[in-house]
């Protein structure tokens, strides 16, 4: 395939990663609005007026699961930064949610932008002036090669191996299909759509397995957005400090001293956590305090993991009950703190659901029981997924998005066969799948198919 990338619709997270309460995923290109519309619900982006901001949800187009609650700006060409159609999706910050949005867009056909590519387009479309051109050139030269190098470097060795293997499997079939077409009288087995179907199913299954590792891979790569919640003074900040092994949050015995959402990263038995210590949640009349509480509730909704801390030395009250209720839909771990003090209630009193794992009993001040937290997090997120070095793991949004595209091509192969389309048409989608997988590993050898043809078969005129 030729390097036609110039008019692709591109996407990227355009805010610094992990900082700020809001992240922006930006799309630019002729398909920007269509692609964004395919993954959002609540508003038809193709119908909204230009330069409007719209409320909606980003959904996984397959499972119809809500990925994030978002605000979407739609800006139609030419009055945009790139002079192309531009869509900006404001997500709730946090790397996981934003990455999910990005990978879903890639899965629908957007391409991850190269460094400086938005600026480059702005220039090529006459949006910025001559003096700025130099810097754009420098940027592209300096970063593009490096980024491509990195993208391939980031590939875990076993993932690369697996994808190469899948491509070769597809190539073997494609070669056979092509030989049947270009050399109809050559005495090789005629490949049937049934054989193609079986191959598509087999490859699809392997890609599905890979996609299942994606979450684990992304956690390993960018961390679990973890919210520590609990009523005031249950020991959230102490826990944060123990996990982060740093004195970051102000720890006092006065309820409500942690006013801001503080983010910090921690490595808990190899799992990177992006820790958010929230202002204690309780009914408050203090207006400033109220702000902090609202933000806590918000960050709570977008967290990947909730560490719900309760205090075993004080009786469970209405606030505790409310927190249990607020988080019952999320992946959470209940942590019973202050094991070092006399217990005020029995652990059977906890309002656990069937999804909850056994609560972890710790003492944050004495740093006891912390290992158990790590074990339970693994249980919650990596169940059934081997994370040893030999297993292929998908680690970033680009890889996930491309794998989803490859999956879509295979689905098209299967539905084409179902509709009894001739093999040379079905083959188009199979080739697309092969090309998409090649993008992941950065393999774009020209005339690969023709080389395959001549090396595999003994062909006459």
């Amino acid at each position, binding site marked *: *395939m*030729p*390097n*036609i*990338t*110039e*008019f692709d619709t591109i996407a990227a997270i355009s805010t610094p990663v992990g900082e700020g309460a809001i992240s922006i995923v930006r799309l630019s290109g002729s398909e920007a609005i269509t692609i964004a519309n395919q993954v959002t619900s609540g508003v038809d982006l193709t119908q909204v007026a230009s330069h409007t901001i719209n409320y909606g949800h980003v959904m996984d187009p397959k499972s119809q699961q809500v990925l994030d609650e978002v605000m979407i700006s739609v800006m139609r060409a030419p009055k945009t930064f790139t002079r192309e159609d531009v869509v900006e999706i404001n997500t709730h910050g946090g790397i996981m949610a934003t990455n999910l949005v990005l990978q879903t867009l890639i899965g629908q056909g957007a391409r991850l932008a*190269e460094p400086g*590519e938005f600026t*480059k387009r702005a*220039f*090529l479309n*006459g949006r910025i*002036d*001559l003096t700025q*051109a130099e810097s*754009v*050139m*420098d940027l*592209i*030269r300096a970063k*593009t*090669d490096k980024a*491509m190098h990195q993208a391939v470097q980031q590939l875990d060795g076993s993932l690369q191996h697996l994808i190469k293997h899948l491509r070769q499997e597809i190539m073997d079939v494609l070669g056979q299909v*092509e030989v*049947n*077409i*270009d*050399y*109809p*009288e*050559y*005495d090789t087995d005629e490949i049937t759509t049934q054989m193609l179907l079986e191959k598509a199913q087999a490859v699809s299954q392997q890609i599905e397995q890979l996609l299942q590792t994606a979450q684990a891979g992304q956690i390993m790569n960018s961390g679990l957005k973890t919210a520590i919640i609990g009523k005031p003074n249950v020991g959230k900040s102490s826990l944060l400090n123990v996990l982060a092994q740093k004195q970051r949050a102000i720890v006092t015995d006065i309820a409500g001293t942690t006013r801001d959402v503080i983010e910090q990263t921690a490595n808990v038995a190899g799992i990177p956590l992006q820790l958010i210590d929230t202002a204690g949640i309780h009914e408050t009349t203090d207006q400033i305090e109220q702000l902090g509480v609202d933000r806590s509730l918000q960050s709570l909704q977008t967290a990947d993991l909730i560490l719900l801390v309760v205090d075993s030395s004080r009786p469970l009250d209405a606030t505790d009950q409310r927190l249990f209720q607020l988080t019952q839909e999320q992946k959470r771990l209940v942590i019973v703190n202050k094991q070092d003090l006399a217990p005020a209630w029995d652990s059977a009193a906890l309002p656990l659901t069937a999804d909850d794992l056994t609560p972890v009993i710790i003492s944050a001040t004495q740093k006891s029981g912390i290992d158990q937290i790590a074990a339970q997090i693994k249980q919650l997120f990596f169940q059934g997924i081997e994370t040893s070095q030999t297993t292929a793991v998908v680690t970033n949004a680009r890889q996930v998005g491309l794998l989803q595209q490859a999956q879509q091509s295979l689905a098209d192969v299967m539905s*084409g066969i179902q*509709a*009894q*389309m*001739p*093999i*040379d*048409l079905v083959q*188009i989608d199979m080739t697309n799948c092969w090309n998409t997988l090649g993008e992941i590993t950065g393999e774009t050898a*020209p005339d690969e*198919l*023709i080389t395959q*043809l*001549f*090396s595999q078969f*003994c*062909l*006459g*005129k």
Partner: protein
Amino acid sequence: MQEYDAPEKYDVIVVGAGHAGCEAALAAARMGEKTLLLTINLDMVAFMPCNPSIGGPAKGIVVREIDALGGQMGKNIDATYIQMRMLNTGKGPAVRALRAQADKNAYHRLMKATLEQEPNLTLRQGLVERLIVHNKVCQGVVTNTGARYRAQAVVLTAGTSSRGKIIIGELMYSSGPNNSLPSIKLSEDLEKHGFQLQRFKTGTPPRVAKNTVDFSKMEEQPGDTTPHAFSYETLPQSYLKDQISCWMTYTNAHTHQIIRDNLDRAPMFSGVIQGVGPRYCPSIEDKIVRFADKPRHQIFMEPEGRDTEEYYVGDFSTSMPEEVQQQMLHSVAGLEHAQMMRPGYAIEYDIVEPWQLKQTLETKLIAHLYTAGQMNGTSGYEEAAGQGIIAGINAALQVKQQAPLILKRNEAYIGVMIDDLVTKGTTEPYRLLTSRAEYRLVLRHDNADLRLTEYGHQLGLISAQRYQQFQHKAQQISQEIDRLQKVRIKPSAQVNELLAQYQMAPLQDGVLASDFLKRPQIHYSDIQDLIGGPELPLPVIEQVEISIKYAGYIKKQEAQIAHLKKLEAKKIPANLDYDDVQGLATEALQKLKKINPTTIAQASRISGVNPADLSILMIYIQRGRIAKRAE
């Protein structure tokens, strides 16, 4: 040799009357240019030195494209074939392929007669030895008899004659195809002008006498009884009923043993042959070595004509010594007593590395000079003819000082081929394959007229009557598609009876006729039975069916084509100084300077030019534009 100025002046001179030269000369002459066609031997006009057949996958589509542009190959084979078959009928419409066995002599005679009768065309025997070039512009040619012919444009189609060398075992001699006179000095002249030439190799199998072949041991391959034709002008009622069969047999362990025992005498392996041969059409000795596991190889026996005993032993190309060839033949079932009439041979020849050409087939080094055909590194009569017609058209357009014709990759296989050649060059004889076309679903054999007749008409190569018929056909197609997208089929006893016949669920609600036709079992005739419609000719019905049934796939390819078109619109200035472009990777810089692409799309297809280089190039060009505006 004392030179003299030939009294006649020409607009276009074509050198070589093989399949490329004939199309080039006819196109130029028919466009009103006074044309001279020079060839080494008038008895070898449109000669088929290898297999006596035209068409096949991709190649057959090229023949139709030539026909849509107003070329001759399709008409010539339609009048001289002895067998015709449609291949790939079990597959989709995009890969169906027509192939005909030609009566070799009849094909040559008819083409020669056509050239002779063309008003603006002079056909003459002559061996061209050098070009007349002034200030990097070609102004004519000089022959070995000393004649200086002047013209405004020259098309070279010298084929395998260029410094040709035939090899049979230990025997090696200077020769063009089939023991014809080689062209030696022209190659030397091209080198003097700075062209980079390369040695290629190809080969042909032995021919045997039909009356010594035992066909009872072979499998018959008869022609089709349903009418076909290459040319859109050929009428179905003229379809040949009395066709001659081909036959198939196989090599065996004994054949392979003979070859292995004599490998030391095989020029392919003894180091005698240095030219690069094609991977796809290997000699039989090559096959035995490279695919040692294969217990047998197919052999196709193809008749060379109606009035000759000669049979072409297809897929048995060899340059083994003559006596070994005999032994090899006699080891094959049915050929035990076959009398060899001509031995097979390998031939080495010069090609002009095709990246030295523009997409018009004009050379970059010398203006008004075009090259086409096997000389550009291709293989096959159809590939040659496809380039020939484009070179002839562009030579004529240059004389007229009009914009050239460049077929795009989404318009024709001819466009794919020329773009491949000039953008990537080739390291082996280039054969068209359907897999070389990224948009093969739209480059079908059935729609070549819809793709290209408009060009043929604009160039004046298509008669007014044919153009009218074409327009009528196009209109019928779009009207009928339109109708089927509006009219509904309602559930009725008749409809459901039909569906039951195909074991499909009965219709609950009315559906658009076009949606109904999308069902795999349903054909246009069913729709007509159910709701009636206009009487339409078969080719129209075929287009309607294909357009509707495969709409989803066609739409996908069209989206990709739209993308390509945007890139094609990004022109690269002809005089761009790549050394001035800061930041191009070294490989990209070298390749871009060598190929000198005309559009960003073409640049994107050069191997070694990556997206970052394209970005830098586009920014450089845009910056130049802004600077110009500011002045």
